[in-house]
């Protein structure tokens, strides 16, 4: 505990809370700040992607590469905004937006066949051949009413994932 919480004033905490639309309580923000300081070893105000890779649990995650792309050079506000999708208080829409961003590798608001293939490749690795993956993806897309060449936008994702209860949460330890 000690001196880290004194570097974060009440104003800072409230500002961050506003920024993440109250997804986290003030206690959680303080805990996350400690975590941020722990990861930001050189005290430069942002976390280089290397640091995330030094967490073994993160590095062995199949989607770590895609997430790293999104995580690079984060300062604390962006860090909190990133994690806010995983708060139990965030809306389903917010979570779906997050998933969309993971898929949208070139950040142009559209998810192509290749984007989906990339994520599928990360998840299945050597368990499926490239050909099998393309087959499966094409088949499933067709069934849902899309073609191989169609681009999915956020509203499509909302439609597809919207009427389920998506469980995407990470617990913030509060001591």
């Amino acid at each position, binding site marked *: 505990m000690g001196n880290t919480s004194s570097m974060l004033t009440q104003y800072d905490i409230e500002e961050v809370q506003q920024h993440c639309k109250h997804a986290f309580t003030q206690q959680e923000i303080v805990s996350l700040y400690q*975590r941020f300081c722990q990861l930001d070893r050189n005290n430069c105000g942002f976390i280089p992607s290397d640091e995330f890779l030094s967490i*073994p649990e993160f590095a*062995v995650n*199949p989607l770590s590469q895609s997430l790293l792309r999104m995580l690079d050079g984060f300062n604390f506000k962006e860090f909190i905004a990133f*994690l806010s999708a995983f708060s139990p208080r965030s809306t389903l829409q917010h979570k779906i937006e997050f998933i969309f961003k993971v898929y949208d590798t070139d950040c142009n608001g559209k998810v192509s066949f290749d984007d989906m293939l990339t994520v599928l490749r990360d998840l299945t690795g050597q368990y499926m051949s490239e050909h099998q993956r393309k087959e*499966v993806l094409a088949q*499933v897309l067709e069934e849902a009413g899309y073609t191989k060449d169609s681009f999915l936008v956020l509203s499509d994702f909302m439609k597809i994932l919207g009427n*389920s209860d998506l469980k995407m949460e*990470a617990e913030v330890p509060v001591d």
Partner: protein
Amino acid sequence: MNSSGVLKSSSSELDLDRPNIEDYLPSGAAIQQEPRGKLRLHDLLDISPTLSEAAGAIVDDSFTRCFKSNPPEPWNWNIYLFPLWCFGVLLRYLIVFPTRVLVLTIGWIIFLSSFIPVHFLLKGHDRLRRSIERSLVEMICSFFVASWTGVVRYHGPRPSRRPKQVFVANHTSMIDFIVLEQMTAFAVIMQKHPGWVGLLQSTILESVGCIWFNRSEAKDREIVARKLREHVQGADNNPLLIFPEGTCVNNHYTVMFKKGAFELGCTVCPVAIKYNKIFVDAFWNSRKQSFTKHLLQLMTSWAVVCDVWYLEPQSLKPGETPIEFAERVRDIISTRAGLKKVPWDGYLKYSRPSPKHRERK
């Protein structure tokens, strides 16, 4: 084949369940017209379990926790206790510390003045020389322990000198070795350190029969394995002490044991060490402080309190692999010392997990 309904669950085996899709492929062997659980676009796009895991790791992960030094609760914060604490600080730094330095210096003088002559004069009489050197090393370690006012309680039968046996212990700090050496002269296997510690290693510890390794050298492992085997065979050598974690952990957790110590074909005697943090935290956070600073910190605190348990010797059970054996011994040590087990390799402190691990996941 597990049911394909499982694809929707929040288990992290999402990718391992993927083989279900092979049933679904038009070109696959078993073409199911109506598979039991239809794979929909929704299931394919739902990567939330994997993402939750990743976020969980970012927020808090068990590996970093192993190496966190937890500062003790400050108790000196009110008007009555604070002056008492200040008085204690003065006492510790101005009276106790110099006394300890004096004690240590006397110890070193006695040690060196006996060790050097014995080492050179009794060159011919190996047995006698060895036994004297052994008692001298035990003595200097007792001096070290006294210099931090170490209160060590030993439980269990004292180690005996027998061939074909190896001692393993959990590792918190370099002083683990000194605490154990005080009771019995062990031969230890350590990382070669720079500076004055390295000097100590090459001169004095050589006489008790220590083995060096270098983490950064790749070929090192085979050489070390060979040296270990040779040492254990010799009846005259001191019993070998190994810290299979490979690195210092903060005494609340144990990381995975390296199997090297368990493949030597001898009985393994586990030793559990637990430090009481009441006066000082004995965990040497090698990323945060050098060994000298760590020693000074120990010498300026009131006492170092710890418990050492010598546990029942274990042998490889028929049909057990060395890795399972290592895990079983780790279990025994962790239970005895009240530590939590963590499934990570200590060496990840120094390097990244290879892409192989990611593939496997």
